[in-house]
Structure formats: C-alpha cells, structure tokens
C-alpha cells in the first residue's frame, strides 16, 4: 500500500492541476500550475530520481512558471479574470476525461504491472551523467542547438515590428 507522503503528493499534484485549469484568475492559475509541477518534482524524489527532481525544479518551477506569470501580466486585466471556454463542450470534456481515466486505469490495473515491485538499488546519477557524454552525445548537442534555435526564434517572433497594435499586419 502506498505511504502517506505519496498520497499527500498525489493529492497536491492532481488538485493543483485541476486548480490551474479551473481557477478564475489566470495569475492564481499559473501559481497553481507551479504547485502541480513542484508536486511532480516531489514524486520524482520519491522515485529516487534526485537529479531529475532538481532539474524539474530548476527548469519548470524556476523558469517556465515565471515566464508564464510574466506573459499573463502582459495580458489585459479583463482577460485575466474572464473565463473563456466552450459551455457546450464542458460536459463532453468531463466525459472524455472520465472515459480516459477509467479506461486507461482499468487497462493498467488489469495488466501485469500491479505485481511489479523492486528491491534493487536506484540508478546512480553518475551513470546518467556518463550516459549523457558518451552514448547520448549527439542527442545532447542536437538538444542544445534546438534550445538555442527555439529561444532565438521566440525572441524574433515576440519582437516583430510589422504587427500593428489594433489588427492586421502592415506589410
């Protein structure tokens, strides 16, 4: 049976994920998203993946959440508090969510993974580091290039001067 720390982390994660989508204010929503991502980092800690947990904290909670908060602050005040959603699709969305959860959950519980437990020691993070620079080095370099390219592209997109404030582009 799961221990109380796991249950608490799972409740925090799922609760803040729901809150991130359902809270009226986008600012509180992004703070709740921060909570959900931090809960995932806690679950990584429970899985003995300390390195991934710290990476998650640094990248998601540290930078992405702050980036989202700043973007939310650039948006008009009325839009932050306005709920924009399809009323007709609401029930269909809830039904889709429940169907996904129940079907996938039933499949997973019914499959053999219920009996999987392990007593083996966790993977050492030194192994991950040496994997990165030996077997995965082309992927690592490619990832660096993709990150640099996408951040540059994002800057160029956000700085475009040919878009007028009130509507269509000028050129």
């Amino acid at each position, binding site marked *: 049976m*799961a221990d109380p720390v*796991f249950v608490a982390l*799972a409740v925090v*994660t*799922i609760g803040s*994920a729901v809150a991130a*989508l359902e809270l009226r204010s*986008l600012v509180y*929503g*992004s703070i709740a*998203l921060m909570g959900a*991502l931090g809960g*995932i980092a806690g*679950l990584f800690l429970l*899985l*003995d*993946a300390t*390195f*991934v947990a710290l990476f998650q904290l640094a990248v*998601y909670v540290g930078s*992405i959440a702050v*980036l*989202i908060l700043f973007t939310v602050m*650039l*948006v*008009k005040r009325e*839009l932050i508090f306005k709920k*924009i*959603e*399809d009323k007709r699709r609401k029930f*269909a*969305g*809830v039904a*889709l*969510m429940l169907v*996904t*959860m129940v079907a*996938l959950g039933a499949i*997973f*519980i019914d499959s053999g*993974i*219920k009996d*999987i*437990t*392990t007593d083996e020691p966790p*993977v050492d993070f030194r192994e991950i580091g040496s*994997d990165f620079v030996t077997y995965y080095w082309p*992927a690592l370099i490619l*990832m660096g290039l*993709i*990150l640099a390219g*996408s951040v540059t*592209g*994002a*800057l160029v*997109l956000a700085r475009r001067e040919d*878009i007028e*404030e009130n*509507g*269509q582009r000028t050129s």
Partner: protein
Amino acid sequence: MVNELVDFTLVSIALLGIGIYGLAVKRNFIRMLFAIEIIINAANLNLVAFGRFIPESGGQTLALFSIAIAAAEVAVGLSLIIVAYRMYQNVDVADFRSLRG
C-alpha cells in the same frame, strides 16, 4: 520501494485525463498551454517511474531530454501568445482567424 509502480501510473493517468479535459474545453490560449504542460509532466512521471522499476538509467535520461524540449516548446508558445495578443487583443483561440481561410 514502499510504493508500487501502479500507483505512479494511476497518478499519471489522472494528470493525462485532466490535460485532455483542459485541451477540449478551454479556449484560452494560456490555459491550453497549461494543459499541454500537465500532459508532458504526466509522460515524464511515467518515464521516471518505469525507469526506476526496471531499473535502468535510460528512463531518467529520456525524462531530462523531454524536460529540456518542453522548455523550448513553452518559450515558442509564449511568444506565439504575445504575437497573437498583439494582433487580436485577445487570447481566445476562436478569435485567431488568419489561418482559418
């Protein structure tokens, strides 16, 4: 390990369901980005959980790659939000019409 693999998978499935709900119902661009983030995190949780129980370092390595790529995706998505907001003064995806023909 006190916890079992199936517990982590169930949390991950719950997060996936919430993300799908958000993508289906919300029309706010920023909220849809939240939903995408939640789905990506559910996938990462699965990777790390299976990597812990096999045990194998590949799961954590793949999760690290996935986190980095998600960071790039969010940067591009947020800049798209800024551009669309400057063009339409709105974040409702139903109002973004220039690709709609």
